């Protein structure tokens, strides 16, 4: 996959879908990225859409549902939401959606900051294989990977999508 092309196409598609998503809206949403890849995508998206303002950053380490199996992510950093969420439209951004568990944790975390008017979800890549009833509102590219394939967003400069193979 890697030749920046795939990424740029996905990013373009995502930008268009997000633009369409908010076309009938009279205010812009607050953008929140899920660390780390989601924050990169959120920044790229803001730039492509020509939006100003801060990007919120969520570190979901404290909300993961697999703490009892895997423990705490050792590199947890403070979440940073430099705006109020109450009654705001939120655009939640992540690089990849698969099971949906990360985004469940991210939404739980968002609600600890306040009560948003609405949350919409944008992901650069959708890998399917959902384990929770969560669907993105805007997707850059949909991929179906083999068992031993993983896709990873590398960055922050330049951003790129990388296909990796894992030993099975």
């Amino acid at each position, binding site marked *: 996959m890697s030749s920046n092309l795939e990424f740029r196409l996905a990013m373009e598609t995502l930008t268009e879908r997000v633009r369409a998503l908010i076309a009938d809206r009279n205010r812009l949403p607050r953008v929140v990225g899920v660390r780390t890849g989601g924050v990169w995508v959120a920044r790229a998206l803001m730039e492509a859409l020509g939006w100003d303002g801060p990007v919120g950053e969520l*570190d979901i*380490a*404290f*909300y993961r549902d697999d*703490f*009892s*199996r*895997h*423990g*705490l992510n*050792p*590199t*947890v*950093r*403070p*979440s*940073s939401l430099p705006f109020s969420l109450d009654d705001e439209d939120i655009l939640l951004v992540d690089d990849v959606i698969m099971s949906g568990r990360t985004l469940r944790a991210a939404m*739980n*975390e968002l*609600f*600890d*900051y*306040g009560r948003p008017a609405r949350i919409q979800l944008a992901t650069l890549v959708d890998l399917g294989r959902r384990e929770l009833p969560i669907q993105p509102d805007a997707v850059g590219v949909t991929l179906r990977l083999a068992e031993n394939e993983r896709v990873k967003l590398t960055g922050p400069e330049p951003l790129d999508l990388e296909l990796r193979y894992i030993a099975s």
Partner: protein
Amino acid sequence: MTILHDDVTRAQLNRFGQLRHFLTLEGLGREMLTRILDTAESFIEVGSRQIKKVPLLRGKTVANLFFEPSTRTRTTFELAAQRLSADVLNINISTSSTTKGETLSDMLQNLEYMKVDMFVVRHAQSGAPHFIASRVCPHVSVINAGDGRHAHPTQGMLDMLTIRQYKQRFEGLKVAIVGDIQHSRVARSEIHALNTLGAEVRVVGPSTLLPPGIEALGVTPCDNMKDGLDGADVVIMLRLQKERMDGALLPSEREFFRLYGLTREKLAWAKPDAIVMHPGPINREVEIASDVADGSQSVILPQVTNGIAVRMAVMSMAMSGQIAELTADDEV
């Protein structure tokens, strides 16, 4: 003289080198101390949210075992556990009911069978939390909330967090710890952490209150404030217990204040931007003058906020280490 890092140090780490108990700062490396501080910073952010609670320890049970009363410390631990969504049991044990060690072991094993996941232990005997962690309830994570004169590692870490917030570094920092070092578990924990993090530590007090051989821990003892505070970046004042007068360690609070109490005049020997810390509760006009305690260089109150975040950090890290160990055991 080199001091071997003892099995208290080793006992608190699991086989992957992660925190599993939290017993002492001695022997914990710079990386581990920094990780605790970083994790605590994340929890400070949690404390500023509308809902100051994360689901990390949901379904876990934390028992606060206070063999020695301390409302302040117990409250911060309780709040920390609740903000991690743990269930909290508060057990105050009068020392009389556990003067026999057997009773202590029996009681703790009972709690272990009730599937308590973590003990927060405050005990008058140095080494008691280590004893519980290594000999009584090996599956429960033990957090030391102060043992005798040995260690008060969460207090030590919250002081490190405060210093880092104000000074952004430890390397080369001159830190003076003043007062009753001999009887202070806080001082011992601070000394270990500051040494590891690269600060230069002086301990200041009359020789009746300085532990013999303390130089071997890598600190400089001083019996006068002028030398001790000279050029200091951080001044940590310790609480002076009233009973020190009975043991013929000091003549009077008045004389102690005259020689070692922190006044504006003495603070002028330190750097102009030096910060003043105190683990509390403060004895005004005994170890610190009111105008200094309430003055612009005092960071005594921010220390309290940091306390909850540090306790959340070590509780979640120790629980994480416990999980990693149990998971690995299951796989074997």
